């Protein structure tokens, strides 16, 4: 047990401040300390992506990052992407195209997909498959996840065009 560290985070727009041991993993901070249980734990080795969150604009697997490493960061989890009154097009598309089954990978999957579409608003199927390869799904075989992301991309591009 080492000395506790003073950590500040902004999670889904809300400022958080707490003392934590240096070894505290970010996924633990989110799930246990802040009660943000959308991100899940699947492997603890950075392989499955169930714990994916966005940190300072980048997709990060929160199971292998210390909370201390995120000190001062802005973090977005699935809870910050959209709720009942303001669903994100990806959330709508995953339902519409049956892009999920057990739902365990879904928060990480959608969180990663939001960044993918920011980085590349018009991805080809190959680019989607490559860009999502850090997130494992055991149920869907990915075909409908790809379809969901394509549909959300089209929807978002159409909305952007309409707004311009």
């Amino acid at each position, binding site marked *: *047990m080492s000395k506790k560290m003073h950590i500040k985070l902004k999670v889904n727009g809300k400022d958080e401040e707490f003392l934590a*041991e240096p*070894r*505290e993993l970010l996924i*633990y901070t989110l*799930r*246990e300390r802040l*009660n*943000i*249980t*959308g*991100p*899940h*734990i*699947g*492997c*603890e*080795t950075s*392989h*499955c992506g*169930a714990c994916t969150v966005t940190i300072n604009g980048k997709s990060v697997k929160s199971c292998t990052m210390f909370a201390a490493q995120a000190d001062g960061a802005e973090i977005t*989890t*699935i*809870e910050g992407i*959209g*709720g*009942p009154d303001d*669903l994100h097009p990806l*959330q709508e598309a*995953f*339902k*519409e195209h*049956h892009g*999920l*089954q*057990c*739902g*365990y*990978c*879904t*928060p990480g999957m*959608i969180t990663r997909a939001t960044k993918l579409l920011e980085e590349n608003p018009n991805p080809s199927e190959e680019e*989607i*498959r*490559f860009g*999502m*390869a*850090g*997130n*494992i*799904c*055991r*149920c*869907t*075989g*990915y*075909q*409908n*996840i*790809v379809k969901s992301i394509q549909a959300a991309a089209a929807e978002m591009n159409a909305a952007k065009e309409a707004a311009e």
Partner: protein
Amino acid sequence: MKDDITREERVDNLKGMGCSRKRVEDARFTQGKGNYVDDVKLDGMLFGDFVRSPYAHARITNIDTAAALEVPGVLAVLTAADLEPLGLHWMPTLAGDKQMVLADGKVLFQGQEVAFVVAEDRYAAADGIELVEVEYEELPVVVNPFEALKSDVVLREDLVAEDGSIPDGAHGPRKHHNHIFTWDAGDKEPTEEVIANADVVAEETMYYHRTHPCPLETCGCVASMDKVNGKLTLWGTFQAPHAIRTIVSLISGLEEHNIRVISPDIGGGFGNKVGAYPGYVCSVVASIVTGKPVKWIEDRMDNLMTTAFARDYHMTGKISATKEGKITGLHCHVTADHGGFDACADPTKFPAGFMNICTGSYDIPTAYLEVDGVYTNKAPGGVSYRCSFRVTEAVYFIERMIEVLAIKLNMDAAELRRINFIKKEQFPYTAALGWEYDSGDYHTAWDKALKTVDYDGLRAEQAQRVEDFKAGKTRKLMGIGLSFFTEIVGAGPVKNCDILGLGMFDSCEIRIHPTGSAIARLGTISQGQGHATTFAQILASEIGLPADSITIEEGDTDTAPYGLGTYGSRSTPVAGAATAMAGRKIRAKAQMIAAYLLEVHDNDVEFDVDRFVVKGAPEKFKTMKEIAFAAYNQAIPGIEPGLEAVSYYDPPNMTYPFGAYVCVMDIDVDTGVPEIRRFYALDDCGTRINPMIIEGQVHGGLTEALAVALGQEIAYDDMGNCKTGTLMDFFLPTAWEVPNYETDFTVTPSPHHPIGAKGVGESPHVGGVPCFSNAVQDAFRPFGNTHTNMPHDHWRIWKTANELGLHG
């Protein structure tokens, strides 16, 4: 009275059977509001975790917990010595064996549970685990089941009598101290005779490797003993919550009404979450001891190394035929590696599951199957990973034997299948190994599949590719993988299927609310299959209320009727049938209410979509919504108020889904990398409830099949070290490795199921594994390959190419 909408619109409004209704589960999952077991948080909750054995076989000479108990936050450390006075240091397994909850003097596999550290949080528990000092004395390790049957090393001293004799096991006589059972089916001598005198005999030995279901969410539970009320609540990743309640009652002595088991959202199961694990028992004990709720959640290594392996069947087959290719006999012997304890999850009377479906889709007059179960120093388990009990093994066996026979006969494997299929007019068909197949139309499915993929064209292309390869124009070979499978699912009839004495019926209870909506509760539990969506569709069609007005609830033993749970594709065949039957009871009462309201005789009204109408006068009707209200506000002579029904359904037979799959693969002989160019899957699951969900199940099952066939395995070294304990070594395909699949279907309803449905979740896995494997093997057939074992990872494919001299 007239409607302002058409009959067709009324049907559409119900969102009943046959429509691709969107899933009601998705809103919470897409917004991060699922409630999985690790999301359950209770005041004062503690966290438990295991000290695990680094050795595969060792005697434990001492356990010192003093230092661990000094760690701030550590409250207790449980060992077998603490559990023994409670009689809980061992527990019964589903297979009639017993298993150590915590190591009782020795360990039998790497990762075995030795002590349970209970602490205020996960970090303190981890610190405590580091400081529990266990002294081991290593014993010789046996990881090969054939060697185990010859070895002097006794793995299970508890199963050897004091005079050194070997008492019978749960499934009869044992031949050796490391032998568990011999189980057989069919006619031994007649089969041997047919094979001895046959025109042609093909023989093969094959190893269906050990693997693991590996759902994305691991196993876990939260046990909370309320000492004031004497009630235990147990949340957990249970595919069979009611059975877990009964097991907990039997082993803990708590009365069953004082135990409430809740399966919350489950992050995939695939068989992993059927069994009862030491973590559940230790959590319950720890909660009783500390008086606080205790959570236990596996990490991924715990999961892969200790709970629920699948497969590990060494199979030897002989198949005989006439010169023309008509199969005359089949012989199969299996040496089944069950690990240190026999914890296989099978119906009691079937220690090798339904392996005796291994005659497959073919009319084979004579057959014999014999299975020997063996103890080794590996983890216990033997679950059905996305299949009905051992059906993947059976289907892989026969679909490989057909290919091997085709090579021997120098015949096309598609044609060999066609001339041996059970014919449509032969159903119901009693197979040589005992099962009565309820229905099938194999020729139609096969012809449709081969036509769609242009099978003849593919074979011509493949022949050209072989020429090009030989001429040095390409380094890629082409494989055409075929499989035609018949599953046996929906266990099962109580007369021959039980688990721990509990008959494998299932149940549904329906309450119609006054304003015309409803709640239905079932004995099953979804792990991603979408029960809340599809069971409401069955009910909508049966009772004429919209699916959107029907809540489906599962997984709480205090509220749901008793059922045996979800695995072996049994939810639709058994609980789905119960749902339809309970719905029909509702309808029968509704008919009487309608007749009363319309002032006619009961027989003068008939059901029409969402209402009862007076026969011959369709303008006179009462909708189900109106009837529901009447059930609560009318005093109808001779009819009780309310509108509720319950059905416990004991299926008369299993269901037999089938399908025809074709995989086209290009294989780079220099890198061993297979590229799946096309995968066509035709499934016949009988009546289709929700085509969107069926298609999703097929995609997922095929992907798990791809994993198993092309790389996924639980491997051990000679010391019994598990070499594949993390996702770094255990292959789970990503979006990058997985192709797009083409799905198709035929519909052959089950004649005995109330709505004709057969179950589909596991078909694609069962049929997919041999299809991927056959594609790899087929690519090398022109160069002399008969059989190579899975998993066909890049290295093994390269090695096959190398051994066949294809690297020059």
